[in-house]
């Protein structure tokens, strides 16, 4: 009865070089590193406290289990015993307070270190990126004072290694949250607010980020690839993204373009250099160059692209992309066209 029962179990083998597991325990930048320091400190304190408390509890509960059970309760315990017990409890409380204070100081120091990137970054001309959250994909823009140099892409954030990045984020529908665990921290995308987030990637690679604030049906499939690459490659990527789509050279792709421009697609999607100018869905000008489809849900392969276009509702039930029952020849042509948009 339910519409999503026949989903495709797609093979996942993201063929990107340097794909990292999405994990806070595998840091790739200064902020991720700082979190790791904080994590080990808190783990050490916690394990020590836990072991001590549990030992005290179990000894207290079990140390007299072989003695006969006293029938009469002790209504007024001996004052001397109570006093020494009181000293132990006071000491334990004092140790607790000291430990909490240590933790507080460590936390504040880490927090300041987090913001130091902002202070240092402002001086070093950070890469500025605007992210807009949509149900259920990420619109990513590299602003430029010259409008023709602006780059709009989707679900893939390219950043140069070793340079601070500042994200200016907002949302046009519901609240989302940007979270790249390996790079540290998360920040909400809130309609009506612009939030900023600073980070820096030190190791080149591909890091998966995911929406962390519940945002509706496809919250689970709202991911984003952060591609950290050497400065040169980043500049090359940016330059390539600034180009409009190359017109098709062969007849198959030309037919694909006609299918695209003649069908539903153009109402929602843009391809620079063609009349397609919809702003509802991701910009497809360079869709062929992206690692994934459907906001990090499917590896960008021919097969997945076909499945996604024809029946997006089986991969992402509730997604705002409608089904497109194209004839198979049209579909093949369309896929060839889109794949060629690099």
């Amino acid at each position, binding site marked *: 009865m339910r*519409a*999503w029962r026949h989903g495709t179990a797609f093979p996942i083998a993201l063929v990107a070089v340097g794909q990292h597991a999405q994990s806070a325990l595998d840091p790739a930048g200064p902020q991720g590193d700082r979190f790791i320091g904080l994590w080990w400190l808190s783990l050490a304190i916690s394990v020590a406290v836990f072991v001590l408390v549990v030992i005290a509890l179990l000894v207290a509960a079990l140390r007299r289990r072989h003695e006969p059970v006293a029938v009469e309760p002790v209504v007024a315990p001996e004052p001397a015993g109570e006093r020494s017990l009181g000293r132990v409890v006071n000491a334990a409380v004092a140790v607790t307070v000291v430990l909490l204070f240590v933790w507080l100081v460590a936390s504040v120091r880490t927090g300041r270190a987090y913001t130091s990137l902002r202070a240092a970054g402002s001086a070093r001309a950070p890469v500025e990126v605007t992210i807009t959250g949509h149900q259920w994909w990420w619109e990513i823009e590299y602003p430029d004072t010259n409008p023709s140099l602006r780059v709009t892409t989707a679900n893939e954030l390219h950043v140069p290694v070793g340079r601070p990045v500042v994200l200016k984020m907002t949302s046009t529908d519901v609240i989302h949250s940007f979270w790249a665990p390996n790079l540290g921290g998360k920040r909400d995308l809130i*309609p009506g607010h612009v939030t900023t987030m600073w980070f820096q990637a030190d190791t080149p690679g591909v890091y998966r980020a995911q929406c962390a604030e519940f945002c509706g*049906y496809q919250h689970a499939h709202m991911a984003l690839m952060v591609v950290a690459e050497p400065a040169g490659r980043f500049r090359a990527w940016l330059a390539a993204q600034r180009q409009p789509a190359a017109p098709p050279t062969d007849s198959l792709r030309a037919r694909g373009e006609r299918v695209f421009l*003649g*069908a*539903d697609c*153009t*109402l*929602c999607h843009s391809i620079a250099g063609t009349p397609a100018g919809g702003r*509802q869905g991701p910009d497809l000008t360079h869709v062929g160059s992206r690692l994934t489809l459907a906001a990090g849900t499917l590896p960008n392969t021919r097969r997945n692209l076909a499945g996604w276009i024809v*029946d997006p*509702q*089986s991969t992402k*039930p*509730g*997604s*705002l992309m*409608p*089904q*497109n*029952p*194209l*004839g198979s020849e*049209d579909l093949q042509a369309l896929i060839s066209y889109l794949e060629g948009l690099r």
Partner: protein
Amino acid sequence: MTAARARAVVAIGLGALAAATGCEREARPFRSTALTASAPGEVTVSVLQPGPRAPRPEMAEGPYDENAYAIADGKRLFDAYNCSGCHSQGGGGMGPPLMDSTWIYGSAPENIYATIMEGRPNGMPAWQGKIPSDQVWRLVSYVRSLAGLTRKDVRPGRNDDMQVKPAESSMPRQRAIPSTKP
């Protein structure tokens, strides 16, 4: 246990009440029920035709007059596809207003469907082949909500935008009055 039985009765009663009012309204029709190719088909300018009318396959999908999710989706599409460009949030501008009770080309769902799909004289473009038929049905039910032709409890509330008109759910129910004036 009379009390337990009484509680069961209360539960069943409440359930029946909700069932009567709720189920269809709250369904989430994510996928189109009858998938038809949206390749450009023949455009008919008039619904008048000789002989018995040929059934159109996509009629099976809609309308979604009883479904709050589909109507809200229609509202989103109304915005997304820039219907407001001419109909201005339903108040009318270059195109006729959609909030009033006057209907030039008919207020029945299939009339509105035909209006969107095939276009009308004096400016309404044909969206056949541009908007999938399932989405057109959603737009149809939204347009009917705008005009107060659907039940109040399935209509959308206000949007998170500047308000230019009361929410659809606050509009009174209206009766459609056919108009002969094009």
